[in-house]
């Protein structure tokens, strides 16, 4: 447990430090203010989002290209339908159980909303509500794969309701 916290503090310090560096570049005077701003931000972030799950950054990096490719496909798919004369749409809902901690389920929902043909509407009793643009195009087939990726990013530990 302690290892997770140390890792989380390190990760977040690097992340917020990098953002601070981007904001205050090119000057160096900003570094002094950063000595106060970055620790305060890390503290706030740990308070709002305690480190319960070890985040595997390399898995996140591996996942990123898939997400970007899916996002481009999703945009093209929607553009194709929007411009088509007869507008091929076949909307409908699916509800599927997603075995992820709560934050992970929300991340999955957000990601699905940017991927082809799927749009999440939050979850209910552990089941993600997904709206499909075309129920016959098999958009929902990719969902388990995305869920598995996010589960891998969040480490193997999975609980049904995700509450610590």
């Amino acid at each position: 447990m302690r290892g997770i916290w140390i890792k989380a503090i390190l990760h977040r310090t690097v992340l917020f430090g990098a953002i601070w560096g981007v904001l205050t570049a090119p000057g160096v005077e900003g570094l002094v203010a950063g000595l106060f701003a970055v620790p305060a931000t890390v503290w706030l972030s740990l308070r709002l989002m305690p480190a319960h799950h070890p985040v595997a950054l390399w898995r996140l990096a591996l996942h990123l290209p898939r997400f970007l490719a899916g996002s481009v496909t999703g945009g093209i798919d929607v553009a194709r339908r929007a411009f088509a004369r007869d507008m091929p749409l076949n909307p409908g809902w699916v509800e599927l159980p997603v075995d992820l901690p709560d934050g992970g389920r929300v991340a999955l929902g957000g990601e699905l909303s940017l991927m082809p043909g799927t749009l999440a509407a939050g979850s209910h009793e552990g089941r993600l509500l997904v709206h499909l643009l075309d129920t016959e195009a098999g958009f929902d087939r990719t969902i388990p794969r995305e869920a598995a990726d996010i589960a891998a990013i969040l480490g193997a530990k999975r609980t049904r309701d995700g509450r610590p």
Partner: protein
Amino acid sequence: MADLATIALTAAGLFFFVAGTVGLIRFPDTFTRLHALTKADNLGLGFIALGIALQAETWAQVARLGLIWALALLAAGAMAQLVARTALEREDAE
């Protein structure tokens, strides 16, 4: 060379922005419109930011463009789910 790439990328971005608007206007119900908006718009912003990044003068500007896009994605992911859920809950036509 960078200029050509900028033109191509911003053109793609503009295309997706227009596609998002066309979807928002043409699609038949709230949820399908939300699809068009969420996907096309953020892709449009991403391509435009990428194109402009090639014109940037410092790496900090490039990184700032990345940060802008990341924040827009975060907002889109949350907004899409929240608005979809609210629209799911009740009819509210005025």
